[in-house]
């Protein structure tokens, strides 16, 4: 019956923390630590295997794969963070406003989120990218615009919950201004669970952004974004399967890190223990 605590939280959470920690280190220092200039081509040493000079070999233009992976970490993670921030930027006010004002505003806003939610994410982002032209920035905007509704709904639910607390009701009756109410009482209640969700969402955002780059409509070469690297490596995949393995593995690890982190924290917060046979 005590198995549960052993098998879920600590190991997973720790792995997650270690993974994300390593990635953050690479993101911040990768560019300086990288053995080569990530964009420096050596056209005479294309598609080379592993060696001391090029630990993970070179790509089709003779660029060092390891250096590209390292310097691409900031770009890949940064893009996901930017997307998450953009999503919050849209979802937070909409969720808050609809929950606090209620009535027809709430109805309208929630209807609008319904409408957005009905479209498949990837295609919706695609259309927006079609609008803006393919680039990492468009991908970020596209994904954020397709993603905010689900977050807005969550903010809405959390805010409604928060509003129903006695002390919030009390301060509301005392005539506290709505802005103060949000800052003092609501945000402190909704932000912690929101960040847990965002950690899990980060995993999915990373996946979607790299998918778009892989389809060639996100980050554009020579940017060393992981998905874009995979897209570039694709033609050479029978020649040098290693070119495909490394970026894919890195994406998987990063996504796994965020998943483990989010799951781990969620478990910590959720202290109901189910009955075990």
């Amino acid at each position, binding site marked *: 019956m005590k198995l549960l605590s052993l098998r879920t939280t600590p190991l997973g959470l720790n792995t997650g923390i270690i993974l994300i920690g390593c990635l953050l280190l690479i993101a911040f220092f990768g560019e300086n630590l990288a053995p080569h200039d990530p964009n420096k081509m050596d056209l005479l040493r294309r598609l080379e295997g592993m060696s001391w000079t090029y630990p993970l070999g070179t790509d089709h233009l003779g660029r060092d794969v390891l250096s590209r992976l390292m310097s691409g970490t900031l770009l890949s993670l940064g893009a996901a963070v930017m997307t998450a921030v953009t999503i919050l930027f849209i979802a937070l006010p909409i969720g808050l406003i609809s929950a606090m004002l209620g009535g027809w505003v709430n109805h309208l806003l929630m209807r609008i989120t319904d409408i957005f939610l*009905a479209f498949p994410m990837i295609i919706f982002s695609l259309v927006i990218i079609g609008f803006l032209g393919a680039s990492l920035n468009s991908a970020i905007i596209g994904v954020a615009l397709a993603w905010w509704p689900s977050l807005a709904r969550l903010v809405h639910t959390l805010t409604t919950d928060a509003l129903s607390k006695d002390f919030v009701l009390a301060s509301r009756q005392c005539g506290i201004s709505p802005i103060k109410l949000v800052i003092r009482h609501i945000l402190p209640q909704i932000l912690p669970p929101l960040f847990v969700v965002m950690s899990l969402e980060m995993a999915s955002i990373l996946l979607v952004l790299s998918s778009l780059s892989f389809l060639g409509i996100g980050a554009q070469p020579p940017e060393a974004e992981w998905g874009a690297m995979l897209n570039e490596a694709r033609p050479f995949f029978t020649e040098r399967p290693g070119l495909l393995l490394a970026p894919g593995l890195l994406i998987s690890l990063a996504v796994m890190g965020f998943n483990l982190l989010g799951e781990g924290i969620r478990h910590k917060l959720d202290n109901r223990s189910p009955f075990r046979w």
Partner: protein
Amino acid sequence: MQTFILKRIATAIPTLLGMSMLGFFMVALTPGDPVEMELRRLGVIFTPDQVTALRQEYGLDQPIFKRYLDWLIRLLHLDMGHSIASGRSVLEEFKTHLPLTLILASLSLSLSILLSSLFGITAALTRSQILGSFVQFFSIFLVSIPSFWLALLLLFIFALSLEWISLLGSGAWYDLVLPVLTLSLGSAATMGRLIRDRILAAMSEDYIRLAITKGLSPALILRRHILKSILPPLVTNWAVTFGALLGGSVIVENIFNLPGLGQMALQAVFERDFSILQAYLLFMGLIFFVSNFIADLLNYWLTPHFREQNSSQGATE
């Protein structure tokens, strides 16, 4: 029952209208003149007059609201216009691309349900610590693999290295093995985690504890109590997953060269094929609505208390 259905449909109408509007305007306002693009693509010397005439013909010279209304009215007659790229009717294009994606999504959903039940129930009920953590970890691992990478790896192993499966497909059933596997592994892992969490949550309810202490067998408890409480959220999840599979098949179709709906939409974005895109977005919205509707109906039928708008899970026998 009837009032429930009517109510659902009544609330859906404004959403559907909003969806059609969003889809229509988003596509119609996209930069890129389809007429000039088409002429240019043909390598034709064209005059401004020709462009104007062609634009008139496509109705592109009309104000956008009028175009939307016209489109809605034609939609009621199932006339969704013609593909600018192929010249065939949108309906024909759907007939060409839809079956494959439908089959793909249905098979993937079925496999996901099967695998996830296996995963989920094992993870929730096993007493073996090793098996439990393995299933847990494996499911997180599967959720974390990008589907396009998985697809490429599967392709590399089975089509290029082992040559068990042909790359372009040979028309046989096993062509779909890899795409279905790619699509279902990820969603199976997500669903399996949901099942596990739900079972564990249900088991922490007092009435289950009571049943267990009363000495009922695990199988009986699972079937009689837990299943009942976890099915409704699962059914809803399946509906959502089905919609996501239909829309998310674009990458798998791209990698496995399957001419499905996703490929059609991707091409339509690149080619500014307005009618196709607008119809596609509306169609996906409809699918979303219909699958959720079916899920709600199933839930309505599954759970007596759902009918009384009572969502508490405390019902006992």
